[in-house]
């Protein structure tokens, strides 16, 4: 069934017979659709499968659901982008996707499961060996386990096993909405506080029929782009650090903080906590603050341009970035990769353009084609320029009016799909309400859920020493995937 982005729809109308459901899902995905979400939800004494298919070029969305009570047909063999979704469904419900080529736990959260203890792909042969890294890593980063199959430096295959960050937040979100829901959304992935809070608020507003005032939309845009600026700038610095080019590493580390501090000026929190509320924003800007932010933005952008431009003009950096960790367009599309990582492989998907929301109008996205570390870094730089222009534009012409409207009770027996372009890519929240107008189910898909597989692909045929560089070029969220 065709649905509108951020439009509440009658959930019962999305139902199909099981046979028709699987046939439709497969044919829609093979016709250029991308699975924005595929999940199982409790339904009386059984379960219900729900798939959200996005057609990026046309900006179209479709939703289908079917009751299921036993093993079901795996679509992964013909649609590899569903591989992790089906593993998740199996882990959460025990319903087996029959024919899944590599069925194993996603989060190790079932009774008796031990994190990391599952089969890994192995390569056999003389002098072929395994390298295991994690869950605790050398840096100040989140935990995860990486298993490389190598011959010397050469990597045949990398398998990534996560789940260490699983803290049960999606399940609690589904029990809402209540006083804790918004903070749960904000901490789904801490560095994407605004992205996930916006996706949550937009879902609630659509179900409540609240119209967010223009001023609040623009303020949300300012915060989302500041979040993107901080993360992209920090990552370009970290990429420079990984190739031992310390000037840019040092400058960008500081500049990332400048953008975070601008968020703190708006709402008190460097990560934007507490800024968004269902119905609008909790803080407003006055003339003096707008002026201060404008000056800080200009200064931070000038210094960022100075620091980042060194990268493209330094031979050793360009040489190390170029040709490293290539993700082909075919792989990116086949695996349903999103965000700057997809755009760096030539995939034309940016939620701000394909599924416009809030203050985004006529957005033009930044795309690059080579799919290597250089391309992923360069797309980030293009987005830094774009985000700066967007923030400056909104600050210069902030619409007048209130910053929030009351957000009433939710529509019963409805559902909504909320898509936001976070700095890592498309965030998808799907909410279904029950007869009591509370959530019946709430499904979060962080961009990292799609993209971890892309990181594994970039290591094939590469070298172990490419790993930090490839990893940083994606900088994926462990907690956003583990929930």
């Amino acid at each position: 069934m065709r649905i509108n982005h951020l439009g509440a729809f009658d959930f019962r109308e999305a139902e199909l017979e099981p046979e028709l459901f699987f046939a439709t899902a497969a044919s829609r995905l093979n016709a250029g659709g991308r699975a924005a979400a595929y999940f199982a939800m409790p339904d009386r004494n059984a379960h219900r499968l729900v798939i959200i298919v996005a057609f990026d070029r046309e900006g179209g969305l479709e939703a289908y659901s079917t009751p299921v009570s036993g093993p079901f047909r795996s679509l992964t063999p013909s649609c590899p982008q569903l591989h992790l979704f089906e593993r998740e469904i199996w882990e959460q419900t025990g319903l087996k996707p029959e024919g899944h080529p590599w069925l194993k736990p996603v989060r190790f959260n079932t009774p008796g499961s031990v994190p990391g203890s599952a089969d890994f792909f192995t390569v056999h042969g003389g002098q072929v060996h395994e390298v295991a890294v994690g869950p605790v890593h050398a840096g100040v980063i989140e935990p995860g386990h990486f298993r490389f199959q190598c011959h010397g430096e050469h990597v045949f295959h990398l398998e990534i096993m996560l789940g260490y960050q699983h803290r049960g937040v999606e399940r609690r979100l589904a029990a809402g909405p209540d006083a804790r829901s918004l903070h749960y959304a904000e901490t789904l992935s801490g560095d994407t506080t605004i992205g996930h809070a916006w996706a949550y608020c937009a879902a609630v507003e659509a179900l409540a029929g609240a119209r967010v005032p223009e001023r609040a939309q623009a303020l949300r845009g300012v915060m989302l782009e500041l979040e993107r600026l901080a993360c992209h700038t920090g990552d370009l610095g970290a990429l420079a650090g990984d190739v031992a080019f310390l000037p840019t590493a040092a400058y960008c580390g500081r500049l990332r903080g400048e953008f975070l501090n601008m968020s703190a000026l708006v709402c008190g929190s460097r990560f934007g906590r507490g800024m968004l509320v269902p119905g609008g924003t909790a803080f407003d800007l006055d003339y003096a603050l707008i002026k201060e932010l404008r000056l800080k933005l200009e200064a931070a952008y000038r210094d960022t341009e100075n620091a980042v431009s060194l990268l493209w003009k330094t031979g050793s950096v360009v040489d190390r970035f170029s040709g490293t960790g290539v993700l082909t367009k075919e792989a990116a599309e086949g695996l349903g990769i999103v965000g700057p990582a997809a755009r760096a492989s030539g995939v034309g998907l940016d939620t701000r353009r394909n599924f416009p929301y809030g203050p985004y109008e006529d957005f033009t996205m930044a795309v690059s084609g080579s799919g290597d570390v250089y391309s992923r870094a360069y797309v980030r730089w293009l987005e830094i320029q774009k985000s700066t222009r967007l923030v400056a534009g909104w600050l210069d012409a902030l619409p007048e009016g209130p910053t929030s409207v009351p957000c009433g009770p939710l529509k019963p027996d409805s559902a909504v799909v909320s898509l936001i372009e976070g700095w890592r890519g498309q965030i998808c929240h799907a909410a279904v309400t029950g007869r009591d107008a509370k959530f019946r189910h709430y499904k979060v898909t962080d961009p990292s859920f799609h993209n971890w597989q892309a990181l594994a692909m970039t290591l094939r045929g590469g070298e172990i020493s490419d790993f930090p560089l490839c990893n940083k070029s994606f900088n994926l969220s462990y907690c956003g995937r583990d929930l």
Partner: protein
Amino acid sequence: MIRVLLARLKQGYRTMAFPAEGLKLPHRALGLPKVRPAGLERAAAACPYGAISSAGLDMGRCVFCGACAKAAPAAVEFTREYRLCASSREGLMVSGTQHRRAEALGKELRSLFGRSLRLRQVSAGGCGACEADCNVLGTPAWDMGRFGVQFVASPRHADGMLVTGPVTKNMELALRKTYAAMPSPKVVIACGACAVSGGPYAGHEECPGLPPDIPVDLYIPGCPPHPLTILDGLLRLIGRLE
């Protein structure tokens, strides 16, 4: 080469003075609360995390969302004071305007760690924001290396462990192994509401929390704590601040 040197000149010297006179959190940020008995029940009812009771406000459970101050402005008022850390869990309880600020380690440990503290960070189930604000302390703007404090890659090289996150079931073993791998004497720092009390995830059976047999020497509250709060706590712990 010349481009790199010119950029160096343009970027300038950016390390902030710390501690500095009049240093405060940003204007709209919420720091050390002032707690008054009038209307405290209303504040307690507004707190989604059960951080407020008749005894006062427990900063260890607080995520500094400000819901209490909005519901009962007479009972709770947040200041812009960033010095929030405590040496004991009880020290995070604010009644009136008082809480027991962190104290330095004993003389012996201070002579070992006072000029050089190497920390192994273990991220155990949080949202990644605490880690980000620990990382920022290594950038030129904060440069915590000037105080002799540094994050290291191996627990074998560490004097202490800084824990973030509510310690999920899936991270408990890795956390224990890291702790066991550090040579004694060692210190443990719980950074952020999650590590201190479970924070927003308190009560989830997926998050059993820091095991009670791993003793904590420093509690850093906040969700996430501001880098100022973290740096203040670390320096207080090693006796570099009075």
